[in-house]
Structures are given as structure tokens and as C-alpha cells.
């Protein structure tokens, strides 16, 4: 398939793929570093729960909802001053990581919250009866038991990030989306557009398959003896 592309375009494609992977990896890691503890907190801080703080839970929930309900392309533009503050510029691959992270963190938080809430309350009860502290309950019960669901959640987050990272191309973010827009659309090179789409599909497929496989391996609930 790459025969019809000139070597220069192939080089561009490789560079763009690397840029996309870089943006997704960094945004995914920072997004998880923020979203995971936030999600755990959201899942354990309603009244009567481990870290009961209903007000903070409510406020954080509102913030997360606000971020989640802003269309990504608007979020990118709306936080340009913040992006400049962090990245020193609002254009390019590194700058694109800022809005990607800002979009990923609340999304991941909600997914982690849902995964943690799936854990049987009876297990929390058993751990409390053993004398576990709230942090021990999180570390020894909630996170390990939710691990298969968390794996699937992070897989979904990465897949979404791949899509978002293509979108930041439209505002000069670099990566596969940028390549597709500049060459495929503006210079009218449909073969470049097709190549970009195929690489994106392959990336998403690879991430999803790896995530599914890992989650199935981690899940011990449906074993046959």
C-alpha cells in the first residue's frame, strides 16, 4: 500500500505516527496520574463511604462533568492561555498534550470511578472486619479487584485519546491528524488521507486487542477448575 506514496510522504507518515504516539502516551500517563486518584476518591467519598466528604465529592463531580461536557475542539481553544502557561506555546505536539491531558483526566476519573463502584461492597465489609485502614482497603481490595475493569477503562481512554490527538491536528497540533489535514485535505492527496486513516485504525485495533487480552488474563472470575 505504501508503494503509491513517495518516500518523503512515508517519512512524514512515520514522523506523524511517532508524534501521535508521543502525545497519546504522555497525555495518557499524566491523565491517569490525575484521573486514577480522582476516580478512586469520587468512588469512595459519598456520605457513609470510606473517605466520606460529600461536599468535596459533589464539587469535584461538577468540575469533572463540566470538563466532560465541553466539546473537545472548544476545550482546545478555550484553554489556550493555560496551554501557553504550561507549554510556553499553543502550537505543536508538546502544546497539544495540554488539552489532551485536560480532556483525558476527568474522562479517566469517571471510568475509574465506575470500575471501583463495581467492586462488591461485601469485600469492603470483610476488609473492614479484618481491621484494614481505608488506604489498605483501597490498595489491597478496591484497586486489585477492579484491575480488569480498570484495564478496560484505560484501554478505552487510550483509544479515545488517539481520536482526540487526530483532532488537535486541526489546530496545528502535529501528528497523524495534522498530516491528514495538511496533505490529504488541503493539498488534496487522497492517498495520504487514506494512509492516515489506515494507520489510525491499526493503532486503535492494536490498543484495543492488547487491552482486551490483558483484562481477560487479569480476570479470575470465570475460571474452570
Amino acid at each position, binding site marked *: 500500500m505504501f508503494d503509491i506514496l513517495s518516500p518523503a510522504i512515508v517519512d512524514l507518515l512515520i514522523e506523524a505516527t511517532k508524534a501521535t504516539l508521543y502525545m497519546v502516551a504522555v497525555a495518557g500517563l499524566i491523565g491517569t496520574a490525575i484521573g486514577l486518584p480522582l476516580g478512586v476518591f469520587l468512588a469512595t467519598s459519598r456520605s457513609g463511604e470510606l473517605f466520606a466528604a460529600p461536599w468535596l465529592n459533589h464539587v469535584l463531580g461538577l468540575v469533572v462533568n463540566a470538563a466532560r461536557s465541553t466539546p473537545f475542539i472548544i476545550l482546545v481553544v478555550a484553554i489556550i492561555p493555560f496551554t501557553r502557561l504550561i507549554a510556553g506555546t499553543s502550537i505543536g505536539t508538546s502544546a497539544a498534550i495540554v488539552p489532551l491531558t485536560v480532556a483525558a483526566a476527568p474522562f479517566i476519573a469517571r471510568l475509574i470511578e465506575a470500575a471501583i463502584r463495581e467492586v462488591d461492597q461485601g469485600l469492603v465489609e*470483610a476488609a473492614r472486619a*479484618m481491621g484494614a485502614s481505608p488506604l489498605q482497603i483501597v490498595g*489491597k481490595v478496591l484497586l486489585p*479487584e477492579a484491575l480488569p475493569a480498570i484495564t478496560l477503562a484505560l484501554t478505552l481512554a487510550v483509544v479515545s485519546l488517539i481520536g482526540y490527538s487526530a483532532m488537535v491536528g486541526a489546530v496545528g497540533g502535529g501528528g497523524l491528524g495534522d498530516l491528514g489535514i495538511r496533505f490529504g485535505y488541503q493539498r488534496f492527496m487522497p492517498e495520504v488521507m487514506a494512509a492516515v486513516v489506515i494507520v489510525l485504525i491499526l493503532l486503535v485495533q492494536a490498543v484495543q486487542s492488547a487491552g482486551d487480552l490483558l483484562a481477560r488474563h487479569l480476570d479470575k472470575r470465570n475460571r474452570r477448575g
Partner: protein
Amino acid sequence: MNAPFSILPPPPEVARGTDVTPSTIRFEHVGKSYPARRGTPEVAALTDVDLAVPEGAILGVIGRSGAGKSTLIRLVNGLERATAGRIVVDGTDITALNEAGLRAARRSIGMIFQHFNLLARRTAYENVALPLEIAGVSARAIKERVEPLLDLVGLSDKRDRYPAELSGGQKQRVGIARALASRPRVLLSDEATSALDPETTNQILALLRKVNAELNLTVLLITHEMSVIKAVADRVAVLDGGRIVEEGPTYDLFARPQHPTTRSFIAAVAGSALPPYVAARLKDTPAPGGEALVRIVFTGDHATDPVLSRISRLLGVDVNIIQAQVDEIAGRPFGVIVVGIPNAPETVAAVLRSVEQLNLSAEVLGYV
């Protein structure tokens, strides 16, 4: 926690406080109400509960759904806090502890659950190890403790199996091993056999008996099944509407139940339920030429006495045996016989009197 591990409990300590009879768990005027919430009024789940579980005994609390059983047992390890009264466990006033104190106290109180509550992503071994990890025990000491425990509950060969690979009975065995891991003096059992079939239930109850005897463990168990009480409990408390309506040694409760709730629980076991064709015809008042149905409970030494023939000879009445069963409760013979006798009031009174003279209890169930 670093002393050499063995299955035997540590040597008993000198009795603390000024207790005369050592009871390991003591409820003193305990009340628990759940506050009103949107739409639901306040619920008084327990009212003025006084209860003592003697050291090394198995006390069963029986009650219908909603009677307050789970609330009662969860108060013992502070999963719920009492709103009135005091609960003393092994010399410690649980109701006076803060969260940190409670966490420490919980390590010497084991608990098992109806739905086992095993971690799905931990093997049998790792589940039993969990309370020790929580207590900060070293991996080596954990191994030295967990392996004999798996042996004790008969699961050494399932060591590396995940809960999904175990049967219900095996899961509860893991639950019991886990509850014993931190060498508790007290074991709480919340409907631990309610999700199991009758045969597995008997095996688990036998295991509870075994650990109770071998480890001198004090057991508080709650159930809605009188058959469970009959199989393992030394003493019973009957909980009804959040109050203890009757309490005493299991045998005595079966022999002389006082409260209607107790009677109805007993009616479900020990052959006390009348055959349906008789129950359907049972009336409250005598009909001409009919019979009175009398239930006689044979206890202790009398269980095998020829009481009926003696009554029949003595009073010259025909005794028609409707139902008879001899059973064993707390290791002592226990018989229940339902007989039909002529329903003339003076005959019925004479029969009741002569039964009571033999120190047995009898009651008129009705007339057919």
C-alpha cells in the same frame, strides 16, 4: 505477631476486671437506631439488648428477616456503632473505641459471611493471608501461619485455586481459615450457611464446632434456621422486632419454649410440624366424639421411657399416636410425640396432669 506460629491459641490470660462468670461478649442495654433519611423514618433496629456469650461457647441468635440480627452482630466488631448501651468484647469496651482503636480490636475478632466475601483475584492461600498482610506480618510468618490453617479446614490441595474454582462449601472453608488467621478469640458468623445446601451446611457447622472446641473460640452466630441452632449452638437467643424475647441453653429452649416466636421456629424442625392432613382438620374447640391432639416433649432420661403405655394403663384411655420422633439436641436425646386422646375435658386434664407428674411438658395443640 512474630512469635512462633501454631494452631493452638496462646495460653489464656488471667481474667481481667471483676467478672465472676467470664463472658467473652457482653451486650449491656444495647440500642441501635438508624437515623431518619429522606422519605424513611428512624428505624429502631435493636432495643435494650442484654446478652452474654460465655467464653468458649457457641451462642446462636435466631430471628426472622428484619429482626435485627445483622445489626446485632455488626455491633460486636464496630461495623455499626451502638446508639445506646455498652458492648464489651474480651474485656474491651467496643463502644468506647475510636476508629483506630476499633481497627486494632477487629484483628482479634474473626468474621465469616453468607456470601463468603472472598477476593476474586486472590487464590485461597492469598485470601487467608490477607488479614495478616493487613496486620503487617512478614511473608515468612504468613506462610507458616496460612499453610496449617488451610490444613485445618481441609483445603491444602486447593491452595492455589481462585474462588471461582471452588464450591460454596470450599469457599466458606477459606472464609473460616481467613477469619482464624489473626488468632481471634471471637468468631462472628453472619448467616454463614444460608447460601449452602443442607449437606454442605452440616459439614461447615461441624467445622465450626471443631474450631470452637480446638481453639477455645467463642462463637456468636446468627441464623434464621432453627436447624442450624440445633446442630451447633450451646445457647440460643431469640430476636424479635429488635428485642431478645427469649434466651437460654439450646436444649431447654427446645424442651420448653416460652415465646410464640420461639415456638414457631421450633415447629419448623424437630418433627414438630403436624402432617398436613392433620393440620388441615385442626380446630380450636372440641367436636363431639372427636379427639384432642396433645404434644408431649420427652427430654433427657425420659426420652426412651414407655410413658404412653403407662398413661394408657393408668387412665384407661386409648392413645392414638399421630406422630413421633426422637432426635438429638446438644448431644442429649429429645423426643416429640403427638397423640390423639378422647376430647372430654376431664380426660384431657388427667392426661396433662400425669404427663407433668413425670416431669415432661405437654400442650394441647387443638381438636380433630
